[in-house]
């Protein structure tokens, strides 16, 4: 059983690895975006899916990473790869500053405080315009080929999956789940919930930080409105919920399916897909709160590694 799974994994990875040489640029770009959403949905899963603390402002970490990388690239001439890694560090620092006080709050208070975070970071970015270019943003020199980005983004998506796998199969992950299930009981049994929540939060912020950095390199021009949009948070959330919150592959499933849907819907009408995401969120919460994989997991008693 384990060997079979390993073979499948290697096959998929190899396939994705050699794919860019056989398909059109459009497919490569599209897959790159799916990688991005996988990484983002998995990172949201790490905090919200596992601990149940809903982070409504998660795109703030994405934007922080994007801006950090963009500033390092344009002002200091860094290469985009290390710049993005630093982006993850600044995102994690932001998470530490915000998470330390806010995670002490009970669930709904935390969620609302996160709702405001995004607006605040965006306001700060606009305010310090000498560093960040304010409303006009930062422009990077264009790239010749997106191939390196493809592999980089794929790498982050893979890293997100691996981190989630390690977490869920570890005692750390089990304890995070106990926070979601019943935080009062978890604390009464000696589980240091505040510290654990913070670790999960830091990791869940570092990933979007790198993704943001790659994104900045990819689009070559970032400005506050486009880098901190609510739709990014919404998409992260709906992909994770739809696919299966708290599972390892749920966000992958959600990211893939909904990216395909989004691509199809985009040509129809610009705001249509956002409305549908809203409707999907409502329907998932009412009918299928654990998401597709979550439901399957319950039904067929699948192991937690799903």
């Amino acid at each position, binding site marked *: 059983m384990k060997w079979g799974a390993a073979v499948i994994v290697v096959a998929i990875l190899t396939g994705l690895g050699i794919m860019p040489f056989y398909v059109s640029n459009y497919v490569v770009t599209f897959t790159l975006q799916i990688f991005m959403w996988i990484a983002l949905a998995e990172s949201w899963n790490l905090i919200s899916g596992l601990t*149940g603390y809903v982070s409504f402002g998660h795109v703030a970490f994405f934007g922080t990473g994007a801006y950090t990388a963009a500033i390092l690239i344009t002002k200091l001439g860094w290469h985009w790869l290390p710049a993005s890694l630093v982006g993850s560090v600044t995102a994690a620092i932001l998470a530490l500053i915000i998470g330390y006080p806010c995670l002490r709050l009970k669930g*709904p208070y935390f969620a609302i*405080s996160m709702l405001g975070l995004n607006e605040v970071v965006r306001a700060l970015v606009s305010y310090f315009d000498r560093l960040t270019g304010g409303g006009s943003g930062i422009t990077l020199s264009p790239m010749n080929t997106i191939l390196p980005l493809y592999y980089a983004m794929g790498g982050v998506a893979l890293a997100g999956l691996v981190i989630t796998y390690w977490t869920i199969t570890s005692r750390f992950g089990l304890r995070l789940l106990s926070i979601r299930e019943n935080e009062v009981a978890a604390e009464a049994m000696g589980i240091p919930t505040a510290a654990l929540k913070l670790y999960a939060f830091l990791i869940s912020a570092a990933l979007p930080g790198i993704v943001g950095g790659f994104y900045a390199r990819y689009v070559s021009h970032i400005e506050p409105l486009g880098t901190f949009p609510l739709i990014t948070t919404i998409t992260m959330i709906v992909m994770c919920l739809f696919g299966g919150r708290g599972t390892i592959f749920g966000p992958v499933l959600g990211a893939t399916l909904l990216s395909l849907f989004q691509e199809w819907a985009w040509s129809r009408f610009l705001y249509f897909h956002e409305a549908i995401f809203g409707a999907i969120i409502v329907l998932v919460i009412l009918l299928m709160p654990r998401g597709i994989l979550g439901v399957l997991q319950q039904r067929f008693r699948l192991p937690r590694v799903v």
Partner: protein
Amino acid sequence: MTIHFTGTMLLQGIVSGLLSGGVYAMIALGMALIFGVMRVINVAHGTLLMLGGYVTYWLFALYGMNPFLSLLISFPLLFVVGLLLQRFFVSRVVGAPELSSLILTFGLSIFITNVAVMSWTSDYRSVEFLTGSFLLGPIAISKPRLVTFGFALLITVAAFVFLNKTKTGKAIRATSQHRELAQVCGINVRRIDLITFGLASALAGAGGSLISVMYSIFPEMGRGYVFKSFLVIVLGGAGNYPGAFLGGLLLGVVEGLTSLLLTAQLSEVIAYVLLVLVLLIRPTGLLGGRT
């Protein structure tokens, strides 16, 4: 860069702030009621506000109706919308983990907001009805702000009278203090949930109508108000309805002063920092309430 602050400027900031605060208070009262009775955080509250604003706008643009008169329409209309939302969606997550209601109302707000964008476009619209200001001593008082404050005050006072003097109102307060006990006393909490959500939506809608007189409206306008309403509830203390009113005024004043002393952008940051501070230091609110 030095700025000289005169007492007049500060007073101006405070007065303007108080006037806006009245509207905040009314809107926040709605959200406080929903949270108190159902323990649901209505992220869609801002969306309901937006709908109220558009009702007023369209009545004004198409029929030339006096926006303050349109309150007679937006209030009951949003009451019904609230009833429907509660009946078909929110009722299913009352009692579920608070997470579910958060995400549910979040999803509803996204859906409704985008339907609004698809129907009415993202363009800013304004209701040019009342403009200008007059001088009261050294202070300039904006006419639209004063009148909207008056209406907000009127509606809020009426709401408090309803909550304190009528049977249903008292039942609402009882349910928000102790849901199980209220049930045991024979109160039909499902009916109370419906009425509360309807009333809260009506208050939000009225807020939207009043706001449309002062500022431009657009489909995404509700988002900032959800956060601010929540801040007001936290300031006043959950379950403390008069506290929510005072909290609204306080927020208005803080905002007025910060946009005077700093830029408007930073006033959002200040509001945020204020929220986090209050939540950490006095989670029961500045005026005391339940956690």
